[in-house]
């Protein structure tokens, strides 16, 4: 996502138009950023009704706090952060089991990547087949992403689909970069292994 939107307004221009009372500019901001808000809410919240309420809540908060936005990150990253916190707060309030899953392995060893490297050498397995993604295997991929633990599912999406940088994901989730990297490492490995297993099963 670039700093410039479709109508080549910078974040600064857009914000100053909104602060001057231009509601059309706010509608434009929503249209430009709702993709990320949808990704976050779809990956964190199961109920469509709750997603609808939370998404509106996010943009009311954004509007209310826009004056205090200091352009230290992209506007979309800041909105992503508000979305993540709004969803997390909702899970907390509802005491949903998901919250534990989300915050699992939060305090990883800082040397986690090195230990992962050693571990992964121990369990090195050859890929037995070449993955070719057709329309059907895109369905398998979608299903396998859904089966990942919630945090891994979210991070895979933010990094590989929304193409956010590690720093942007740090800003949105507040997780340390090392934790994000190790979740991502595991997510990719699990995903590839499971897809290959699916391939084999299809062959049989």
């Amino acid at each position, binding site marked *: 996502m670039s700093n410039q939107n479709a109508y080549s307004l910078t974040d600064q221009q857009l914000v100053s138009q909104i602060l001057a*009372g231009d509601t059309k500019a706010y509608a434009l901001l929503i249209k430009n950023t709702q993709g990320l808000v949808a*990704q976050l809410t779809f990956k964190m919240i199961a109920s*469509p009704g709750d997603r609808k309420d939370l998404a509106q809540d996010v943009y009311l908060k954004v509007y209310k706090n826009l004056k205090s936005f200091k352009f230290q990150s992209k506007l979309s990253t800041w909105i992503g952060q508000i979305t993540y916190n709004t969803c997390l707060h909702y899970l907390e309030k509802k005491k949903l089991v998901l919250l534990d899953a989300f915050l699992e392995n939060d305090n990883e060893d800082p040397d986690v990547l090195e230990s992962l490297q050693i571990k992964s050498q121990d369990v090195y397995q050859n890929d037995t087949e*070449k993955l070719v993604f057709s329309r059907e295997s895109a369905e398998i*991929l979608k299903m396998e992403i859904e089966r990942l633990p919630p945090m891994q599912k979210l991070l895979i999406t933010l990094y590989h689909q929304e193409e956010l940088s590690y720093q942007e994901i740090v800003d949105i989730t507040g997780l340390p970069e090392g934790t994000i990297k190790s979740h991502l490492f595991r997510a990719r490995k699990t995903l590839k292994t499971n897809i290959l297993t699916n391939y084999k099963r299809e062959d049989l």
Partner: protein
Amino acid sequence: MKLTHLSEQEIQRFAELGSNNTELNSHVAECQDCQLSVENYQSMFKAIEEAEVPIFDFDLADLVLAQLPLAKPQYAWLPALAASLSVIFSAALVFYYGSSILEISRGISPIWILIIVCPAVIITALQFFSVYQDYSKKFSILNEHNLAT
């Protein structure tokens, strides 16, 4: 050339970013197993990138805009200024030409005065009503929003 296979982490990194390390590069170039792993990751990354993204099945912008607190128009003082000027202007007219206006109006039949005055009164009343409705609607939205936060 690196003699052992690349670690899973090296393979992921290689698939994503490539490598400047000649040892790794020559190993991957010659080892079919590592090559296959790298290619599988690359096609998986590409497939995730191209996968369908979730979209809301409602118009989020419409829903949000309807709940926004009343935005201050940039030139809120303009109608007030125009109204004051017109009052002053009318007062001045009456003050200077009051007697002549009376003279003229005596010449007009009462029917004509009714035709002019009645619509003016009705239009003014309707305008007041719509301004009041608009105000109370926005006020209640504002209240709801304050209660919700």
